[in-house]
Structures are given as structure tokens and as C-alpha cells.
């Protein structure tokens, strides 16, 4: 049997995921929303594919980076205005 054909047949039988499939469902995995069978296939792919392991780590690092970005404070005049309105509200 042709080697490529054999590989395709095995992928089909095992329900193997491609790298593109992994990239498409990675958030489902990170969100813990993946079915058990897909999770197994996902892990099988990662076990064999360093590129996708790197991709997963990059996605996690992206989330971590975003979580480290502090918000910019509001401008001092808005803050002053808010405190003034609070005093007004308290009196009312």
C-alpha cells in the first residue's frame, strides 16, 4: 500500500487531528469545554507534535501577558469631578 495512503487511512481510523484542527479548537481545550474523545485526540496530537505544543504555550503566554497589563488610571480632572459629585450626592 502507498505510504501516504496508509498514513491517511490511519489518521482517519484514529480520528487524528491536524495542526490546523488543533489551532482551531485550542480555546475549547483551554476553556475545558472539550469532549473526552476530542481531549484524547488533542493530547495524542500534542504528544507527537512539538510545533503544536509551542502553539499551546504561546496561547497560554498570550493570556498571561494580557492578565499582567494594568489599566491606565482615569485623568485627575475626571477623578476630581467624581469626588465632587459624590459629596453632592451625599448631601442630597
Amino acid at each position, binding site marked *: 500500500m502507498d505510504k*501516504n495512503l496508509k*498514513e*491517511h487511512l490511519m489518521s482517519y481510523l484514529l480520528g487524528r487531528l*491536524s*495542526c*490546523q*484542527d488543533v*489551532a*482551531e479548537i*485550542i*480555546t*475549547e481545550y483551554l*476553556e475545558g*469545554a472539550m469532549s473526552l474523545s476530542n481531549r484524547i485526540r488533542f493530547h495524542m496530537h500534542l504528544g507527537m507534535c*512539538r*510545533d*503544536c505544543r*509551542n*502553539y499551546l*504555550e*504561546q*496561547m497560554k*503566554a*498570550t*493570556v*498571561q*501577558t*494580557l*492578565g*499582567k*497589563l*494594568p*489599566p*491606565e*488610571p*482615569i*485623568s485627575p480632572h*475626571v*477623578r476630581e*469631578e*467624581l*469626588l465632587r*459629585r*459624590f*459629596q453632592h*450626592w*451625599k448631601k442630597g
Partner: protein
Amino acid sequence: MLFFEWLTIALALPVIPPGRDESELLDGLRKGDEQAFAEAVDRYSGSLLRVAMAYVPSQAVAEEVVQETWMGVFEGLSRFEGRSSFKTWLFTILTNRAKTRGTRESRYVAFAEKTGSEDDDEWGGVDLDSFIQSGSKAGHWIEPPHAWDHGTPERLALSKESREQIEQAIEALPATQRQVITFRDLEGLSSDEVCNILQVTETNQRVLLHRARSRVRRTLAQYVKGDLG
């Protein structure tokens, strides 16, 4: 260290009151304590502004929305039962005000059209040109992702240049994706909280998050590659 030496140092240190926890802050607000209000404003307004920017087209309008949100807090404080966290409650008020404000602003329409909505964003969160599309290697990476070292998030968050890249990438997102990634990844809200605030299904929220994160990751990957190269 001698006791007296320790005492001198201890007495010389300024007394910094520890930050109040959420319920203490709420008690203070209900009593009309100005200190508590100033603390609440300093603690949450930056986050509110960041979220407001995902709805309205300019910093000035976003600041007005933040002010309106705090007015909403004054009005609703006595009715707040604490079923959600104070921060989530603030975000709920903010999104309602921002949506009302957004539809009033003619510029918002232009903004919404320009950035599109989830319905007209056909992008599936994966660049097809990153993968081989035919032949025996179909579905494999054309240019495989590199390994980032463990300090990368820290380094990216500290670098002004990369922060600007991230901000631009987030600003360029369709409005709904921007809202979801801001709530989830910048503000750290849970999926349930975001679904409640935005009134979207979990699946819809996940799709928007996936597209948004994938786009930001792509920007960061280009930055990291250029930075290291």
C-alpha cells in the same frame, strides 16, 4: 536589633492603612464615606475605562461613561444585594450605560461598521495561510510556532513597545471580540460572568474569545520573532 532602635524605626514609619476589602468598601460607600469612595474610584475606574473603550469611539466619551457608571452606583447602591461581586456589578452598569451611549453617538455607528460584528467576521481564528492546504502534508504548519521562554509574558507586559502592539491589536478587533477579551483576559472575569454581562451563550463567548486571542497571539508572535531576530 535593640528594642529601642526597633521602636524608633517603627514609630518613624508612616501609618498606611491597608486597603479595605470589598464589603468594607461597600459599607463605607453606603455610609457616604468619602475616603471609601475615593478608594473605590481609584481601584475600579481604570478597569471601567478600559471596558468602556471597547464600546465607544473615544477616550472622552469613555470617561463620560465611567462617570455615568458611578452615578448609577449612587442610585443603585441601596438595592445591590451582593449576588455578584462589586466589580461585576459595576461592569453590568457600565455596559448598559455604554450601550445606550454608543447608540446615541453617531460616531459609534461608523465605528461599529468599520470594525464589524461577530456576524460578519468570517475569520475562524486560524490563518489558513499558516497551514499547508493540499497534498500529503495538508494541515501542517508552514512556519512552525517557536518556543517562547518562560519569562516572555513578563517581558512583553513590561515593554512599552509590546504593550502598544497589544493595544493596537485589541483596538483593531471587532467590537464584540474586544469586549470579550477585555473582560476575560485583561480583567480576569469568568466565562459565566461574561456571558451574564454580555447576554451571550457560552459557545458564542468562546468563539469570540478564540478569535480575539488568536489575533493577539499572532501580533505577539510577530513581535517576539522580530524582537529576538
